[in-house]
């Protein structure tokens, strides 16, 4: 087997299904550079009208939150019920507010 000089970098692919929606992560792929990553993303992830715009980002450039810290990061929001509209009592005859 021939020797690989270096492994081909991994890219994360984001696709916008249509105008008005967010780009959404759909998967990843290997490509030597951004141009090739875009071409490969088009072939791999948009064969059936999945979108009209593609972003590719080098996977190693993504900075992710630590899953071990997910409790201290995200649990506090669940006990702040006053951030939700249903916390506030409004007379029924006011109607929709």
């Amino acid at each position, binding site marked *: *087997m*021939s020797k*690989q*000089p*270096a*492994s*081909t970098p*991994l890219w994360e692919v984001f696709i916008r299904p249509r105008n008005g929606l967010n780009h959404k992560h*759909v*998967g*990843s*792929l*290997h*490509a*030597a*550079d951004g141009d*090739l990553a875009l071409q490969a993303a088009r*072939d*791999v992830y948009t*064969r*059936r009208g999945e979108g009209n715009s593609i972003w590719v980002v080098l996977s190693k450039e993504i900075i*992710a939150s*630590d*899953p071990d810290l997910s409790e201290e990061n995200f649990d506090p929001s669940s006990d702040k019920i006053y951030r939700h509209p249903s916390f506030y009592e409004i007379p029924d005859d006011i109607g929709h507010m």
Partner: protein
Amino acid sequence: MYSQGLIGADSETEESEEFLAAFQARIDREEKIEPNDPMPQGYRKTLVRQIGQHAHSEIVGMLPEGNWITRAPTLRRKIALLAKVQDEGGHGLYLYCAAETLGVSREQMTEELLSGKAKYSSIFNYPTPSWADIGAIGWLVDGAAIMNQVPLCRCSFGPYARAMVRVCKEESFHQRQGYELMMTLTEGTDAQREMAQDALNRWWWPSLMMFGPHDSESSNSDQSMLWKIKRFSNDELRQKFVDATVPQAERIGLTVPDPDLKWNPEKNDGEGGYDFGAIDWDEFWRVVKGGGPMNRDRIAARTKAWEDGAWVREAALAHAEKRKQRMQAAKVAAE
């Protein structure tokens, strides 16, 4: 498209009871496991092996069908087959990426396929000598794969489940094009009908083998079910496939090559189902272990593709590096 009952998993794991119980509780709550979450070694290893086998099956699965692209009888059939084979390549890529989230590299997986360490679905070690084989593969092999893959969309490991959702969306076109192809042959000349029947005769039993060994022989199945990697047992899925496929064969005037096949109204809790004959497991194991008619050809073709592509991969990387350096030099010059 083509997953098969996992061949030879090692789900042994060494974590504390406490850790395993907490993990199991998450699974039981139907929480999805994501790549950076803590998980038992056995869970990780089982998934790396299963997703890897599945990805390799997609890639090797391009070969028997690719064999007929240049000889498809009409342009309509040719574009459909090209699109299908391209989809299989795409499915392989989605799956390799899902496996990579577990910390295995693409290069490592490729090497394991080429060295024979990693397995792929035994079905692709059978040859495709006639055009009807393309119909039989779409109808039966993709049909069996769909039975396997639809429940995998609810697999507990997020990236695998998401990849399977994409795969399943694309898969039903494959099965329909295969069945339509078979139907067209059965509506043709006597020779065409015989060609269709001959393909069914050769692909029926290997398709049933795709679901993997009987539940009683499949020791790691229980752990996979507990971890919700699998949702149905090999035998349950095989029965579903037989029940769905036999009427499809009858509808187009083909005979399933099993003298023991019989409707049994008691089966499936009284809903009825088919009893079917014994599967030749010696053949299954022989083919899995390399003794099928096409094992050597398949690996030789993949090795050639990998080696012939080496200069392209190297050139693309060298080009990317050169462009990066030029851009940096231009930036420095401009400052």
